[in-house]
C-alpha cells in the first residue's frame, strides 16, 4: 500500500489533494455542526423574544385596565394561530392567570413546564425586577422547547390593584416547541454536509482524472518507453504534451535517438570487428596451417638434404673409386692419353663432390641445422693440418707461404671441423687465385668485438695473398651465394661459388665476422674473427664491435656509445636479428633473403664498410628502426655532394637507392648522378645542383612524383630543367601535361635513358622563330600566337627576302610554307641546309595539300614536321603547331 503510494507520483499528488479536500471538508462540517444549529436556534430565539415582546406589549394595556377578556381573547388567537406556542402569564407565585391553553389557568406554571432549571430560573427572574427576556431551551417530553421568561414589573398604573409593595407582579412565560424547526435545521445541515461530501468526492474524481491525464499517463508512457529502452528497444514517443513532461519526453526521444545512433555505430563497429576477428582467425588458422606446412617442409627439406647427400654420394663413390683404380693401373697399364683423360674425369668428379658437399653445407647453415661443438683449439696445429693438403699445390705453383701467430693468439674456442672448413675455404681461395708471390696467414688478438669490460674475445686471422684481387664493386657481393666475382673468373678458376658464403655462415655461427680488403692486381686479404673465449657463445646476438660502432657514430654524428648499448626498439629490448623483419621498403636489404638490417649487421653479413656507399647509409637514415634505435630524431639531411663546376650532373629522385644506383651505373661515364631518396627535398636539391636533367620516380612515400613534378615546373628557377619520369607506373598523358620531357617505364632501359639525356642536353631552347608564309592571314595569325606565347618572330612572304634576313637574324626554328607556286621555298630550305650555321635549325613545313611521295622524298630528313594546313581549322592548326614546337623543344 505504502509502496503503491511511494512509487507513483500521480498517487502521491492524488493523496495530497484528497488529504486537502478531506481537511477542508472536515473543517467545514465541524463548523456547520458546531455553529450551524446554534445559529439557527439563536434566530428562533430572537424571533421568540420579539414574539414575547409583542405579546407583552399587546397585553400591557388590558392588564393595566384589568380587561381580562381581551387578554384571554388575544391569547386564544395566538394559541390558535401558532400551534407550537404556549403562552402563560403567571403571578409571582407561579400560578397561571392567563394562558393560550385554558386548561393551564390556575395551575402552577412549574407543573406545566416540568424542569428543575426552569423553576430556578423563573424564581430568580420573579425576584429580580428587570423586564428582559431570558430564553432557555429545555427538552420536554422528548421534544426541544424554547422557554422565554419575561418578568412583568410592578408600575404605578398597577398600584391601584396590586399595591406598590411588590416589584415584580409576575412573569410572561412562552413555551415554543422548536423540535420541528430544530429538525429542519439538522436536516438542512445534513443535506449541506452531504453536498459538501459529494462535492469533495467529485473534486477527487476530477483531480484524479486530471492527474491521470496530465501526469500519470504521459509519465507511464515515458516509464514504459524507458523500460523498453532499457531492454534495448529503440522506440521514440510520438505523442506527448507540451509541458515539462513533454520536454522530458523530448529529451528522452533525443536520448533514444542518440543512443540508437551510437548503438547502430557500435553495432556496425562490432560487426566490423567481428568480421576482422573472423578474418584474423582465418588468417591465424591459415598461418598456422602454413606454419605447419612449413615445418613439414622443413622436415622434408632436412630429409631431402640427408637423402640427397646419400643418393648423390653413392654414385660418386663408384665414379671416383673406379677412376682411381684405373689410374692406379690395377687393371693393367694405361697409355698417357688414357691417363690424362682419366685424370680429368677424376678431377671433375672431385669438383662435383665438392659442389655437392658445399650445397649441403649451405642448406644446413640456412636451415639452422648446424650445431656447433665448441672447444679449445690450437690454431697452429689446425693450420698445419690444413696446410698438409695445400703444400704440394703451393710448391707446384712456386708460391711462398708463411704463418705468423702472435702471442696470445694461439688458442681458439670454436668448433674444430667448422674452423677448419673456414680456413680451408679461405686458404684454398688464396692458393687458387694467386699465381706469383705468396700467402701469409697472420693471427692476433683482435681489437674488435671486445666485451663490455673491454677484454678482447676474438682472434683476428687474416689470409693475405698476392693474387688477382677483387674489384671494388664486387666486394659487397663476394660473400653472396654463387657470386664469384664474375663469370669469366668462374670459368678460369673452378670453384663452387659457395665457399665464401659458407665461410660467412660458419663465422656468423661463431658470432664472429668476416671481411675483405682487396686491390685488383695486388691481392686480397680476408679477415676472420673467431672467438677464443667461451663467454662469446653465452651472449645474446652478435657482438657489435667497437670499430663498427665508431664508423656508425662518425656517420650519424652521434656518440658511439649508442651503438654499444643493448639495442631497443619501441621500448623493447631486441636482438640484432630481430631487425631483420623491419620491412622498411627503403632498406637496401628489403626483399633480400638475408633480411638482416644492413646497418646494424652491416659488416657482419656483407663484409664491407659503411661509408663507401652513401646511398645505402642514407636509406638507413630513413629506416624507422635505425632512427628509433640510433638517432631518436628526424632523419638527417642527406649529405650534399657538391658537384665540381665542369661536371654535368643528373639528379635522380627515387626512394629506392637501388634504382638510383642503376641509373648511376648507366650514366656514370658521362654524368655525375646525385641521388636523393626523399622527394621532399627535390626542389631544394634541384636549385642547389642545377642538373642538366632530373629523373623522377612517381611512387614515393610522403610526396609522390606528380607533386614533385608540379612543383618543379612551378618554380621559375628550375622549370627549364628537363624532367624525365622513370616509374613503374605508366601514365604518360599526365606526365606530359604536367610538363615532363620524357617518360621511361621501369624496368629501365638505361642505354635509352642515356641517349635521351644526351639529346636533351644538346638542345637549344627555341626563342626566335622565323616564318616564311605567303598567305598574309596565316602569317599574321602565327606571328600573333607565337609572340603571345613569348617567342621572338620574324615573318616574311618572300623566300629571297628570307635568305637575306636569316643572314643577320639567326633563328632557332623555321616555319616554312613549302607549297608556293614557284617552289622557291624549297630553294630557301636548300640554302638553310647548306649553311653551316643554320643547317641544324629545325624546320616545320606547312603545306596546303597532301604531299606526293616524291615531294616527301625530296624533303626527307631535312625537316622535322610537316603540317598540312588544309586538314586543320585555324584553331586546330595552332594546337598542332604548338604540339610540334613542344616536340622539337623536347628534343624528339
Amino acid at each position, binding site marked *: 500500500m505504502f509502496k503503491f503510494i511511494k512509487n507513483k507520483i500521480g498517487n502521491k499528488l492524488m493523496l495530497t489533494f484528497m488529504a486537502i479536500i478531506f481537511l477542508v471538508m472536515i473543517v467545514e462540517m465541524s463548523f456547520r455542526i458546531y455553529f450551524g444549529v446554534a445559529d439557527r436556534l439563536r434566530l428562533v430565539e430572537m424571533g421568540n423574544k420579539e414574539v414575547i415582546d409583542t405579546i407583552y406589549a399587546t397585553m400591557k394595556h388590558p392588564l393595566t385596565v384589568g380587561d381580562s377578556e381581551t387578554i384571554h381573547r388575544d391569547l386564544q388567537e395566538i394559541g390558535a394561530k401558532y400551534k407550537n406556542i404556549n403562552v402563560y402569564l403567571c403571578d409571582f407565585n407561579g400560578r397561571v392567570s392567563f394562558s393560550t391553553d385554558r386548561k393551564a389557568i390556575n395551575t402552577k406554571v412549574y407543573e406545566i413546564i416540568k424542569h428543575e432549571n426552569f423553576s430556578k430560573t423563573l424564581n430568580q427572574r420573579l425576584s429580580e425586577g428587570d423586564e428582559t427576556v431570558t430564553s432557555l431551551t429545555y427538552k420536554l417530553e422528548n421534544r426541544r422547547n424554547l422557554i422565554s421568561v419575561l418578568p412583568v414589573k410592578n408600575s404605578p398604573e398597577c398600584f391601584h390593584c396590586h399595591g406598590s409593595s411588590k416589584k415584580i407582579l409576575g412573569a410572561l412565560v412562552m413555551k415554543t416547541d422548536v423540535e420541528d424547526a430544530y429538525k429542519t435545521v439538522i436536516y438542512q445541515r445534513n443535506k449541506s454536509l452531504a453536498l459538501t461530501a459529494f462535492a469533495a468526492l467529485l473534486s477527487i474524481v476530477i483531480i484524479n482524472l486530471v492527474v491521470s491525464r496530465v501526469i500519470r499517463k504521459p509519465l507511464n508512457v515515458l516509464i514504459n518507453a524507458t523500460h523498453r529502452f532499457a531492454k534495448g528497444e529503440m522506440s521514440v514517443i510520438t505523442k506527448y504534451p507540451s509541458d515539462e513532461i513533454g520536454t522530458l519526453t523530448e529529451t528522452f526521444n533525443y536520448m533514444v535517438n542518440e543512443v540508437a545512433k551510437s548503438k547502430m555505430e557500435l553495432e556496425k563497429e562490432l560487426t566490423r570487428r567481428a568480421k576482422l576477428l573472423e578474418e584474423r582467425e582465418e588468417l591465424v588458422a591459415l598461418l598456422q596451417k602454413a606454419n605447419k606446412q612449413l615445418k613439414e617442409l622443413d622436415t622434408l627439406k632436412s630429409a631431402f638434404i640427408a637423402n640427397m*647427400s646419400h643418393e648423390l*654420394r653413392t654414385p660418386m663413390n*663408384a665414379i671416383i*673409386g673406379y677412376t682411381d683404380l684405373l689410374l692406379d693401373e690395377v687393371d693393367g697399364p694405361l697409355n698417357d692419353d688414357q691417363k690424362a683423360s682419366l685424370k680429368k674425369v677424376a678431377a671433375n668428379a672431385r669438383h662435383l663432390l665438392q659442389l655437392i*658437399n658445399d650445397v649441403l653445407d649451405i642448406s644446413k647453415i640456412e636451415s639452422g641445422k648446424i650445431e656447433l661443438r665448441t672447444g679449445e683449439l690450437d690454431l697452429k696445429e689446425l693450420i698445419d693440418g690444413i696446410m698438409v693438403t695445400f703444400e704440394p699445390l703451393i710448391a707446384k705453383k712456386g708460391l711462398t707461404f708463411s704463418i705468423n701467430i702472435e702471442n696470445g693468439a694461439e688458442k681458439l674456442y670454436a668448433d674444430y671441423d667448422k674452423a677448419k672448413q673456414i680456413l680451408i675455404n679461405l686458404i684454398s681461395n688464396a692458393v687458387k687465385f694467386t699465381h706469383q708471390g705468396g700467402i701469409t696467414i697472420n693471427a692476433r688478438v683482435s681489437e674488435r668485438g671486445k666485451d663490455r669490460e673491454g677484454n678482447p674475445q676474438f682472434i683476428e686471422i687474416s689470409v693475405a695473398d698476392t693474387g688477382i684481387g677483387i674489384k671494388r664493386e664486387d666486394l659487397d657481393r663476394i660473400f653472396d651465394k654463387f657470386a664469384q666475382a664474375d663469370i669469366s673468373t668462374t670459368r678460369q678458376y673452378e670453384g663452387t661459388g659457395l665457399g665464401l658464403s659458407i665461410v660467412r655462415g660458419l663465422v656468423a655461427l661463431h658470432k664472429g665476422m668476416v671481411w675483405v680488403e682487396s686491390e685488383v692486381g695486388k691481392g686480397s686479404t680476408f679477415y676472420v674473427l673467431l672467438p677464443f673465449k667461451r663467454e662469446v657463445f653465452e651472449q645474446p646476438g652478435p657482438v657489435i664491435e667497437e670499430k663498427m660502432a665508431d664508423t656508425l657514430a662518425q656517420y650519424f654524428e652521434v656518440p658511439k656509445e649508442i651503438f654499444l648499448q643493448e639495442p631497443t626498439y619501441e621500448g623493447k629490448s631486441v636482438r640484432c636479428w630481430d631487425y631483420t623483419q623491419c620491412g622498411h621498403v627503403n632498406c637496401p636489404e628489403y626483399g633480400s633473403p638475408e633480411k638482416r638490417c644492413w646497418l646494424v649487421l652491416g659488416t657482419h653479413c656483407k663484409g664491407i664498410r659503411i661509408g663507401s656507399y652513401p646511398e645505402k647509409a642514407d636509406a638507413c637514415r630513413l629506416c624507422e628502426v635505425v632512427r628509433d634505435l640510433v638517432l631518436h630524431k628526424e632523419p638527417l639531411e642527406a649529405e650534399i655532394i657538391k658537384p665540381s663546376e665542369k661536371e654535368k650532373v643528373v639528379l635522380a629522385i627515387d626512394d629506392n637507392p637501388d634504382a638510383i644506383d642503376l641509373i648511376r651505373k648507366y650514366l656514370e661515364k658521362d654524368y655525375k648522378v646525385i641521388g636523393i631518396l626523399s622527394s621532399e627535398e627535390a626542389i631544394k636539391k634541384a636549385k642547389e645542383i642545377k642538373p642538366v636533367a632530373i629523373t623522377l620516380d612517381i611512387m614515393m612515400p610522403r610526396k609522390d612524383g606528380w607533386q614533385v613534378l608540379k612543383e618543379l615546373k612551378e618554380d621559375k628557377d628550375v622549370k627549364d630543367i628537363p624532367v624525365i619520369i622513370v616509374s613503374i607506373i605508366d601514365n604518360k598523358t599526365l606526365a606530359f601535361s604536367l610538363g615532363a620531357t620524357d617518360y621511361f617505364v621501369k624496368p629501365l632501359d638505361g642505354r635509352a635513358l642515356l641517349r635521351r639525356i644526351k639529346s636533351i642536353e644538346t638542345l637549344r631552347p627555341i626563342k626566335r622563330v622565323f616564318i616564311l608564309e605567303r598567305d598574309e592571314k596565316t602569317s599574321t595569325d602565327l606571328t600573333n600566337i607565337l609572340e603571345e606565347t613569348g617567342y621572338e618572330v620574324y615573318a616574311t612572304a618572300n623566300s629571297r627576302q628570307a635568305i637575306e634576313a636569316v643572314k643577320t637574324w639567326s633563328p632557332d626554328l623555321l616555319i616554312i610554307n613549302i607549297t608556293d607556286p614557284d617552289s622557291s621555298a624549297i630553294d630557301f630550305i636548300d640554302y638553310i641546309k647548306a649553311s653551316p650555321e643554320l643547317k641544324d635549325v629545325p624546320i616545320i613545313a606547312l603545306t596546303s595539300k597532301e604531299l606526293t611521295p616524291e615531294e616527301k622524298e625530296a624533303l626527307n630528313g631535312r625537316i622535322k614536321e610537316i603540317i598540312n594546313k588544309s586538314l586543320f581549322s585555324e584553331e586546330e592548326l595552332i594546337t598542332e603547331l604548338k604540339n610540334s614546337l613542344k616536340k622539337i623543344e623536347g628534343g624528339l
Partner: protein
Amino acid sequence: MKTILVVDDNEDSRELVKKILKKYGYEIIEAIDGEEAIAKAIAYRPDLILMDISIPKIDGYEVTKRLKARVDFKDTPIIAFTAHAMRGDQEKALQAGCNGYISKPINVREFHDQIKIYLKENE
C-alpha cells in the same frame, strides 16, 4: 686369410671394395640387405664387417645392434660404411655399436690402410 663381409645394396660399391681389397688377399663375402647380412655374418664369422647403413629390410644400425648383442660378435669390428655425411650420422653409427666409420666416396688409396687399422694388422 682374413674374411671381410661387405654389406651394401649397391653392387658397384661392393665390386669396388672387392676390387680394392682382393689384391691384398682377403676373402670377401657380400650381403645386399640386413637379413642376409645377419645370416652371412653368423655363417661365415668374418674378421671385419663393412656395414652400409641404408640397406633394405633391416637397416645397418639395427644389424649392428643385433650382432653386437651376441657374445660371438662382441670383438668383431663393424665399420659403418655410408654415404650419409651429415653430422650425427657418425655418432648414430657409433652408438649403434660400430667400431669405426668410413664415409663414401672412399679414398681408393687410403682405404686399405683404414681397414688395416681395424683389423689390427699394423701391430
